[in-house]
């Protein structure tokens, strides 16, 4: 069995109904066979493909945990009744769900079941001679006839056709049979385009390759995230990541402990085009990498230009401001100082962050901060940022006192502050203004707890110039995926296989020489498409023309002597012209 039995090019099944009546009951093996035949039929492949397309849709309608975890949380909050029901159907993990996996696994089982017998068949076909010339060519595609020039005999005419076909890439076989009238018929049977099937098989096998490498690839790699403030250094070890997702087979011992420092982070924003004012134009992270026992080297990471180092790929995924905040006790001793990444909330980088001061003061202190790189006041009195760069930076802090819960052992995010258990010391509710600071400014904390300073990172700048006054942070994604190159390789094979299988025509062509009663030779030409072949008929008639011209040139001239030089050269000329025309 070469192609699935319901391929349009396969012979239709012979009276299946009739067989069904007389067939004995299928045994277990019989059922298995039947099942396998169904699974590897074209109809099943088509059905599974369409099912796969449909099954992929829900994942675009509902947020997915893999690509949009916050969206899923939001969805649960917005649809408290519906979400758990959907979750039962794995609607938030569509692409790893049991049902989605079942569809594509079945599809690939079907694919493998289809490709293996076809490959075997194709390997045989590659070695076989073209099939025997059909008895009647007249019904085949592009059928056309020519009269051989007088003096040419059938065997020679067919042999010249054989050479012509062979030189244009056909595999050829000569046949010699007897017609019903008892006359001898010479013919050549030619086939070309085996590459078409090869391409098709490469295409389908490479699809399996993609699936397998993608499936296993994630198992051998990892992905991790790390936020670095300007001036900070990260060492590529498990503990240094903010979050780390290893694949199933990943061994953390293989991490290459290189050092990566973020020296500076530069952000450019549009300032001339008023239609796009404040739109980001460029982000650049300048870094220094040091491999163990080697000199440090400089590198850059940009949005479309990841850095490949130490077996990992480093991507720039996000950035923002990390104001440096110092807290002192009433005696002026520093109890806390750090640059704290504030998470951007909008395009103009209004940012939110949390300061936690567990030790050194009378009470534990938590501060919820907003940072505005260019502060502006709305009509309502609310603050907002009107530009993402540092034109008029402002930090506001709401102060809370009480147990920060850091000792309870429950890991708490550094980006959130649970204020329910805390006592507000500032805020509208209690009528005390929250703290407002510009870079370099200090204010007293409420209740005489001490003071808080918003450090200016660039204190020597001119008055009113705030560029560089607040450090920036960059968030990096660091990946390792050893199979990525394989996926690319298989993808390229998919494309190449596709191109050959769709554009190489596979066709059979026959040339037959029939002797007439008067000894004249009639030449018949015809072709057969195997698969889509829009140019077949044109190809057959071009073959006939070329062949006729060849014969004309080789035929002994009727009236001129064979060795007449001028005549001979003329004929050669005309043959060449013909060749070019075809």
């Amino acid at each position: 069995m070469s192609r699935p039995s319901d391929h349009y090019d396969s012979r239709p099944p012979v009276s299946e109904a009739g067989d069904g009546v007389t067939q004995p009951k299928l045994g277990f093996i019989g059922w298995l066979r039947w099942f396998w035949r169904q699974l590897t039929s074209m109809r099943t492949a088509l059905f599974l493909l369409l099912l796969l397309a449909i099954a992929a849709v829900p994942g675009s309608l509902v947020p997915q945990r893999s690509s949009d975890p916050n969206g899923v949380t939001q969805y649960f909050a917005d649809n408290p009744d519906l979400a758990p029901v959907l979750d039962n159907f794995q609607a938030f993990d569509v692409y790893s769900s049991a049902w989605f996996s079942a569809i594509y696994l079945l599809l690939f089982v079907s694919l493998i079941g289809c490709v293996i017998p076809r490959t075997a068949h194709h390997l045989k076909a590659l070695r076989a001679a073209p099939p025997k010339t059909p008895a009647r060519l007249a019904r085949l595609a592009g059928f056309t006839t020519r009269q051989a020039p007088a003096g040419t005999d059938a065997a020679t005419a067919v042999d010249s056709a054989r050479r012509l076909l062979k030189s244009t890439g056909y595999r050829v076989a000569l046949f010699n049979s007897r017609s019903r009238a008892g006359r001898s018929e010479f013919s050549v049977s030619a086939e070309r385009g085996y590459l078409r099937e090869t391409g098709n098989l490469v295409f389908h096998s490479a699809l399996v390759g993609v699936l397998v490498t993608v499936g296993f690839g994630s198992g051998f790699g990892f992905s991790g995230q790390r936020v670095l403030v300007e001036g900070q250094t990260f060492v590529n070890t498990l503990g240094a990541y903010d979050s780390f997702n290893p694949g199933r087979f990943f061994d953390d011992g293989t991490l290459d402990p290189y050092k990566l420092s973020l020296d500076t982070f530069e952000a450019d924003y549009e300032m001339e085009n008023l239609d796009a004012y404040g739109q980001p134009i460029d982000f650049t992270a300048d870094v220094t990498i040091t491999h163990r026992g080697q000199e440090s080297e400089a590198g850059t990471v940009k949005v479309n230009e990841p850095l490949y180092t130490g077996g990992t790929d480093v991507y720039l995924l996000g950035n923002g401001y990390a104001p440096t905040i110092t807290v002192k006790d009433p005696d002026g001793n520093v109890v806390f100082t750090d640059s704290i990444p504030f998470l951007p909330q909008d395009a103009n980088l209004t940012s939110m962050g949390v300061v936690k001061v567990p030790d050194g003061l009378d009470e534990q202190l938590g501060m919820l901060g907003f940072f505005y790189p260019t502060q502006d006041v709305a009509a309502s009195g609310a603050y907002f940022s009107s530009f993402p760069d540092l034109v008029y930076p402002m930090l506001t802090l709401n102060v809370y006192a009480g147990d920060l819960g850091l000792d309870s052992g429950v890991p708490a995010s550094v980006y959130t502050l649970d204020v329910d258990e805390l006592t507000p010391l500032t805020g509208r509710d209690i009528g005390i203004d929250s703290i407002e600071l510009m870079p370099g400014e200090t204010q007293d904390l409420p209740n005489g707890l001490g003071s808080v300073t918003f450090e200016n990172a660039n204190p020597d700048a001119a008055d009113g110039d705030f560029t560089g006054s607040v450090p920036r942070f960059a968030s990096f994604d660091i990946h390792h995926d050893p199979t990525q190159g394989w996926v690319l390789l298989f993808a390229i094979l998919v494309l190449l296989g596709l191109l050959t299988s769709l554009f190489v025509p596979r066709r059979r062509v026959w040339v037959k020489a029939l002797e007439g009663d008067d000894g004249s030779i009639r030449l018949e030409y015809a072709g057969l498409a195997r698969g889509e072949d829009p140019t077949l008929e044109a190809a057959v008639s071009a073959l006939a023309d070329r062949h006729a011209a060849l014969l004309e040139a080789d035929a002994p001239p009727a009236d001129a002597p064979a060795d007449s030089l001028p005549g001979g050269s003329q004929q050669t000329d005309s043959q060449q012209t013909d060749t070019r025309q075809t």
Partner: protein
Amino acid sequence: MNLIELSIISLTSAMVVYALAFIAFAMDLARRSAAVGAAQQGQVSEAEQPVAVAAGSVAGSSTSVNSASVNSASAGSASVGPGPLPRAGKPKAADTGLAYGRSPSLRVGVALTVLAWVLHLAAVLMRGIAAERVPWANMYEFSMTGTLLIVGVFLLVLTRVDLRFLGTFITGLVLVLLLLASMNFYVEVAPLPPALQSVWLVIHVFVASLATGLFALGFALSVVQLMQFRRESIAAGGKPARLRFLATLPSSQKLENLAYRVTIIGFILWTFTLMAGSIWAEKAWGRYWGWDTKEVWTFIIWVIFAGYIHARATRGWRGSRSAWLAIIGFSAVLFNFGIVNVFFKGLHAYSGL
């Protein structure tokens, strides 16, 4: 007046000329119906010449074979002789339906389409020059360039295969898309955000638009194929069919083959789009595939067209059923562009709206 305003004026003029071309193509369709009507009127005299028809087709002359099918459309199969029609001569002629030629309005339609396309091209170029980058970085620009490629592919195919009868469809589609884009998607020129600053923007988006142009043609051909098939079935039953202009168009079989040819080229380009997109995603977002909504839809479209190609090779699915898959596929392309870009949440938030 600056380049951006000139671009808008040029695009508006292009839309006006597309509208005129649309009218010319529509008039051509009307004339075709009239011509078929006239041919059916003259049926009686034509039916007296079945011998001439058969003789003509053996000799491979150009008009014959399908006038037989026109005959059968109204008067039964008197002229179709016993046995198969000889497969001689030029296949094109045999498949071109009722001899009809090119009406003046058809010529005008094509000429106006070319003119409109030149204006359209100028609008796109000026937008690109004004923006100092490729003119396909937001919805307005995607629409402008995508429709330019649809018409471009159509005009290019016209030089090889006579698909002029699709003029109404193509100019109509492009006109509607351009109107929607100008009214709903217009945004001022803005610089590229960092994630779009990549050669892959040039390659990936351009190839995707080109594929869209081919899918659009395949869609149009499939729609006409279905209509033609219906007419052929009705005609085979001996009843007169409505939409008489169809009699001047190629047979449903021929339309199906044409649709298949443009669609597989579109499919190959789409396969490339998918791969180029993955390579870009790896660079910009740190993973080559993440089931982002836009990725999901690109995948869905790819699978639908893979299904289409399979359907063409599956017994019982050739013909009308596979045509429906080409239609569904292109609808998914439009959905991906018009709905997913604007209303779905995801990383591809570049509509500029």
